[in-house]
């Protein structure tokens, strides 16, 4: 009798121990991921900008000076300008890129044409080349088109290269049953109508996902803007923030937080889609 009881107690204590360990690890993980963010947030509220006047991780005095300077002191670092440049480039590339990617994915999923297999293989192959292998050529092409030092040049590149990543979207369209298409076709709808009226409304999650990815890429890219934009007034935030030194640390932190917040909000709103996986179709057969 007693022995059995002892066994139960032992099992219970083992379980409690297990739970405690789990929570300990989780806390450590949370700390590791959260602390650098907290550090940046605190730094952005420091009164003196330089990293040398910090008490370790913590500023000596707090204030809104860095944020104020970000938008008022624009002689050396015109953050306001950079921010709107980035916004413009990202929004335009997002619209064009999403449109092209969705169209490509839809065609690859629904149509069976001669060069389809070849095109799919080609995209796989092209994806294996180092990503900025062609940057020099892109630079030369842009000089040929007279699009150096212009935002439209960047937008053109971002949206033209976006369809290369159509595979995820194609996988999603593959899960939408063909019976929908067929039913609509029997009712006399053209392929264009089927796409606009039936498929698009069903693929809202995918549209959102595509828009998000094609927005964040130009939003945080630094290689292309750094190469193609020469005037400081045309910089994007990523390029601009890179030019800030250790004495401008608070300004860097404030600028980073300002540009990270929209993305973080977007991600948290969309995390549901990301966890459930893109493959889950909107319609069950």
């Amino acid at each position, binding site marked *: 009798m007693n022995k059995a009881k002892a066994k139960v107690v032992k099992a219970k204590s083992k379980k409690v121990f297990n739970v405690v360990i789990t929570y300990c690890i989780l806390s450590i993980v949370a700390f590791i991921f959260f602390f650098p963010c907290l550090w940046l947030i605190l730094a952005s509220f420091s009164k003196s900008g330089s990293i040398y006047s910090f008490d370790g991780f913590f500023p000596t005095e707090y204030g809104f000076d860095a944020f104020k300077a970000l938008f008022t002191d624009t002689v050396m670092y015109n953050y306001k300008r950079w921010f709107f440049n980035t916004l413009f480039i990202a929004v335009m590339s997002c619209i064009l890129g999403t449109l092209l990617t969705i169209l490509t994915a839809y065609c690859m999923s629904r149509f069976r044409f001669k060069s389809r297999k070849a095109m799919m293989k080609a995209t796989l192959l092209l994806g*294996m080349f180092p990503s900025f292998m062609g940057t*020099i050529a*892109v630079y030369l092409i842009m000089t040929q088109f007279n699009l150096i030092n212009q935002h439209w040049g960047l937008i053109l590149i971002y949206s033209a290269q976006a369809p290369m990543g159509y595979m995820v979207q194609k996988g999603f369209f593959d899960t939408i049953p063909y019976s929908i298409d067929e039913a609509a076709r029997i009712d006399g709808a053209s*392929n264009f109508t089927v796409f606009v009226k039936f498929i698009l409304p069903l693929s809202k999650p995918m549209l959102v996902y595509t828009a998000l990815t094609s927005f964040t890429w130009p939003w945080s890219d630094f290689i292309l803007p750094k*190469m193609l934009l020469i005037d400081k007034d045309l910089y994007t935030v990523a390029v601009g923030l890179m030019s800030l030194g250790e004495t401008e640390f608070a300004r860097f932190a404030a600028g980073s937080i300002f540009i990270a917040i929209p993305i973080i909000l977007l991600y948290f709103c969309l995390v549901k889609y990301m966890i459930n996986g893109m493959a889950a179709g909107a319609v069950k057969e």
Partner: protein
Amino acid sequence: MKALDTITAKFKNLPSAVAKKFRAIPSELAGKFAGAKEILTQGNGKVTASMLVMGLGQLIYRQWIKGFMYLFVQAAFIVYFVLTGAGDLFGLFTLGTREGNAWYGVEGDNSVVMLITGILSVFIIFLYIMLYISNVKDAYRTQCAVDTLKEPLSFKKEVGALLDKSFHKTALALPVIGVCVFSILPIVFMILIAFTNYGGDVVPPALVDWVGFKNFGKILSLGQFAPTFFKIFGWNMLWAVLSTALNYFAGLGLALLLNKKCVKGKAIWRAFPILAYAIPGFITLLGFKFMFSYGGPINYYIQQGGGEVVGFLGLDAKWTARFLGLGVNAWISIPSTMLLATGILSNVNTDLYEAARVDGASSWKQFIKITLPYVLFATTPVLISQFIGNFNNFGIFYFLRGGLYVDGYFLASDTDLLINWLYNMSIDNNYYSIGAAISLVIFAITSVISLTVYVLSPSYKQEETFR
């Protein structure tokens, strides 16, 4: 050992497989040209007219708009070809013959621009050939329709078909053009550059020339480049393996931890890694650089504790910088693996665990025998792409230690990966042709590795196991 056998078996089969492919070519070609043969033998005079002048046949059939459009294409192509196309195409082979000389006011040939316009002219010629074929086919289709006493399609109907039956042609036109100009053209350009002597002193106005495989020889054997190449390559492989393994298993572990029944408030715990995931990479990297800089907080505490300032990312910080890179990369990449694994784990068949528990398997055994194989199976493609991503991880060391050149390395530091070296060589120091050759080597390595891993992976060998 088993893996080795599979590989050798693959290679043994290779010659026969290749031979089979080649033997199939004639019949395949015959199939492709059957249509052409039919048009050539059955086509009437109007089709022949279309063959001679694009659109002529259509005009004889009184298909005015279409006919004039084809005619316009023909005229535009001829004008293009005579004015610039022929010269561009020729320039692709010569890469310029007249050297510019500012002193005498001689405007010479710009070899690099000639290379690009040359590739572009090849693209345009291909496009023209395709249009030409479509023109002949169209004329033949009209002939067939007329022969069988059917009404040939009106222009309006054909335009309508572009939104319906051949919607893909309309929809894919823009993406294909975009990808051709901004993805394929640059890659073709770089591949060709690898076989020239472009770079160093040889930049326009000097003339660039074709040199064959010399650049590859330079990388692999010449004093200046070869030692650096092999040193960086070794570290690059180590880095890719270590960082992929670390990120993968840590992400999987985190997902399993969050999946435990006893964990309450999963959404809140999950929010912290997602926060890290959402912050743009360059901010994270610059932030960590500040954290470990000479004046940063870590060094502050070291000094407070009476220690000397440590240059974590300084000139001679070989291994600390490398480990720091691994850590920072893990901080950035673990959350995405976690999200992925969470999604996959939610699809595991719970019956399997039930059965395992009935049979008395420990939770460790359940992990090894059920969870791990399943997750590995489902994530092999992702694992490959993560490996390639890490192999070509440009950002980490560009931000943490960019622009640093270390003794014993040619234009690189001891943390640089091949891709960073490529950047240093070609963008910062004008060694374009060597840079292009390096990127071809990177391409060869990554594609061989990913193909091998894919062939050996469970998702390839036993596709149906978990279905």
